[in-house]
C-alpha cells in the first residue's frame, strides 16, 4: 500500500491556529471571535498580532454567533472559535436563523469534537454535531484529519462564500498529509487504491483507516482508503467510482452513526449504487471520561474495529 509517514504528531487545533494566523497576514477582512477558549483553540497568535480584528466575547456563544453574522454585513469574514459542543448544539437556533437561513459568510470553527477530547467526558463530547450541521441548507461541513490538513482547510474556507462548519480535535495525532497541500472543499482524497473494500473515513479516524489498511494487506485484503474531509457537499463521484470497483464499504467517523458521514454515504449508495456497508461510529450512546485511546477502543472506533468491519462488509458481498 501507499506509505504515509507521521511527520510528528500534532493537534489539529494547532493547525487551525496556524492557518488563522496566516490568513490574518494575507486577508485583512478575516476577523476572529472566541468565547473564553483562546488558548484551547490556539487563537492566541492571531489575537496578539491582530488585536483589532479579534473579539473576546466571554462565555456567551449565542451572542458570538449573532455578532459573527452581523460582522459579515460590510464584508468581514468572521471565524468563531469554541468547543464543538458549544459551536453547534448550544447555539443551533442562532446558527440556523442568523447564519444559515440568512446566508451569512461565517466560519464556525470547532475544536474538541468527538470522543477524543477525553477526560472531560460526555458533557463536552458532542457526537451529533456533523448531523446537526449537515441538515442545515447551504452549510458546508468539513472534518479534517491532521495538523497540515486543518491548516490548509482553515485557509481555504476563507475563499468560499457561505457558512462553513470546520470540525477538528484536541489530542495530538499523526501528521501525515502534505504540508503544502491545496485544500479543495468537497473533493475527497484517495489515500490508497484497493480492490476488495472501500474504507471511507473522516477526521481522526483517517489515520486509523490507514493502520487498518496495513493490517488488511497482511491478511491478503486490498483496501481502498478515502479521506472524506468534506461531509457536505459529499464527493459522490469519487465514492461511487470506488464502490464500483470494490463492491462494499466501511465508513469510519468519531460521531454518532445517526446523522453522521456513514448515513450520508449510505444514502448515496441507496440512491445510486446499493452495496453492503458497515458503520464504524458511536452506536446511539453518550461518551464518558477516559484517555482518547481508551475511548476509541471501548466505543469501537480504532483500527481493529475498522479491520473487523471491512471483513464483515466483504462477507456480505
Amino acid at each position: 500500500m501507499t506509505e504515509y509517514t507521521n511527520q510528528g504528531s500534532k493537534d489539529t487545533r494547532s493547525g487551525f491556529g496556524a492557518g488563522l494566523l496566516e490568513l490574518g497576514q494575507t486577508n485583512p477582512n478575516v476577523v476572529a471571535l472566541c468565547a473564553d477558549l483562546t488558548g484551547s483553540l490556539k487563537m492566541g497568535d492571531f489575537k496578539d498580532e491582530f488585536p483589532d480584528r479579534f473579539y473576546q466575547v466571554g462565555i456567551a456563544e449565542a451572542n458570538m454567533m449573532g455578532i459573527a453574522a452581523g460582522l459579515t454585513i460590510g464584508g468581514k469574514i468572521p471565524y468563531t472559535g469554541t468547543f464543538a459542543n458549544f459551536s453547534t448544539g448550544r447555539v443551533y437556533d442562532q446558527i440556523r436563523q442568523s447564519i444559515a437561513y440568512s446566508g451569512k459568510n461565517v466560519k464556525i470553527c470547532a475544536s474538541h469534537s468527538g470522543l477524543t477530547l477525553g477526560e472531560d467526558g460526555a458533557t463536552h463530547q458532542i457526537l451529533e454535531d456533523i448531523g446537526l450541521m449537515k441538515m442545515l441548507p447551504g452549510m458546508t461541513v468539513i472534518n479534517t484529519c491532521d495538523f497540515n490538513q486543518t491548516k490548509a482547510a482553515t485557509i481555504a474556507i476563507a475563499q468560499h462564500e457561505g457558512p462553513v462548519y470546520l470540525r477538528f480535535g484536541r489530542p495530538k495525532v499523526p501528521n501525515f498529509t502534505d504540508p503544502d497541500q491545496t485544500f479543495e472543499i468537497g473533493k475527497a482524497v484517495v489515500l490508497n487504491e484497493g480492490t476488495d473494500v472501500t474504507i471511507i473515513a473522516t477526521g481522526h479516524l483517517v489515520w486509523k483507516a490507514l493502520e487498518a489498511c496495513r493490517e488488511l494487506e497482511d491478511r491478503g485484503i486490498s483496501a481502498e482508503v478515502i479521506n472524506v474531509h468534506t461531509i457536505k457537499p459529499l464527493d459522490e463521484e469519487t465514492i461511487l467510482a470506488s464502490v464500483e470497483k470494490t463492491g462494499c464499504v466501511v465508513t469510519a467517523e468519531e460521531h454518532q452513526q445517526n446523522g453522521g458521514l456513514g448515513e450520508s454515504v449510505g444514502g448515496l449508495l441507496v440512491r445510486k449504487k446499493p452495496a453492503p456497508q458497515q458503520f464504524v461510529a458511536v452506536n446511539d450512546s453518550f461518551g464518558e471520561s477516559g484517555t482518547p485511546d481508551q475511548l476509541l477502543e471501548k466505543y469501537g472506533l480504532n483500527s481493529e474495529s475498522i479491520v473487523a468491519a471491512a471483513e464483515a462488509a466483504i462477507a456480505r458481498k
Partner: protein
Amino acid sequence: MQRFYQEIMSNLENLTQTASQVRRDIVRMVHAVQSGHPGGSLGCTEFMVALYFEIMNHNPDFNMDGEGEDLFFLSNGHISPVFYSVLSRSGYFDKEELGTFRKLDSRLQGHPTTHEGLPGVRVASGSLGQGMSVAIGAALTKKLNNDPGIVFTLHGDGELQEGQIWEAAMFAPNHHVDNLICTIDANGQQIDGSTEEVMPLGDIGAKFEAFGWDVMHIEDGNNMSQVLEGLTEAKTRTGHGKPVLIVMRTSMGSGVDFMEGTHEWHGIAPNDEQLASALEQLEETLGDY
C-alpha cells in the same frame, strides 16, 4: 433643539400622514391572509416611519453591505407588516408587492428573511433575542471600515426574556459599541398576557444602565414628535463610548380603537367587519396597494 424643531418638525404633518397609510397597509395585509401580527406593528408605526422617512441615512437602492448608510435590524421579526409597509413606502420595492404578504412564493415571508432577496432586509428574524447580537456585529464592522453609519434596532419588551439579549447587553458597553441605538418597544404585552403577568421585566432602563448603556426614554412612542425628538437626541449620544438604549412606551394596537392596549391582537387578524371599522379610523393618504 430650536434647529431640530424648525427642520424636522416641519415634516411632522407628512410623517403623520405616512403613518396613517402604513397602518392601513398593516391591517389590510393581515386581513388578506387572515394571519400575521397587527398589534405590535401598529404600536411601532410612528417609530418605523420616523426612522425610515426622517432619521436614518439610507439608500432604497439596496445592497447588503450598506456602506456609508445607517442600518436597521428588526429583532422582533413578527411585526413584519409594519417593516414591509415602511420599506415599500420608502422605495425599497413596489407597494403592490405588499399584497403577497405570507402567500406562497412571496418575498414577504411571515417573518423577515434575506432568503428570498427582499430589498431592505439584512438578516432573518422571528426566533427572538438574536437581533441585538447581529446589530453589534454590523456596528463593529462599521468601526473596522471607518464607516460613520449608525446601527439601529428594535426589540419587543417580552423579547428581553431571552437570555441572548443579556449576553449582547453585556458585550456592547464592554467593547464600546457606541454606534448602536437599540430601542425597546415597551408595550407591556406578550402572547400569554401582560408582561407583568407572564414574566415581569422590572425597570428595563435601570437594567441596561447597570450593564453600562446610555439609557433614555420616549414616554409616548405613538406621538410622532416625541419619537422624532427622542431619536434625534439618541443620535447625538452616539460616538461617546457607550451604546444607546431607548425605552419607548407604546400602546399595542395603537390607531385602531378596538385593538389598542391589549395582547389579544398580538397575532390575530381582523374579520371583514373589523377591517372596515379599522379603515374608517385610518385616512388613506398615499393610496392603498
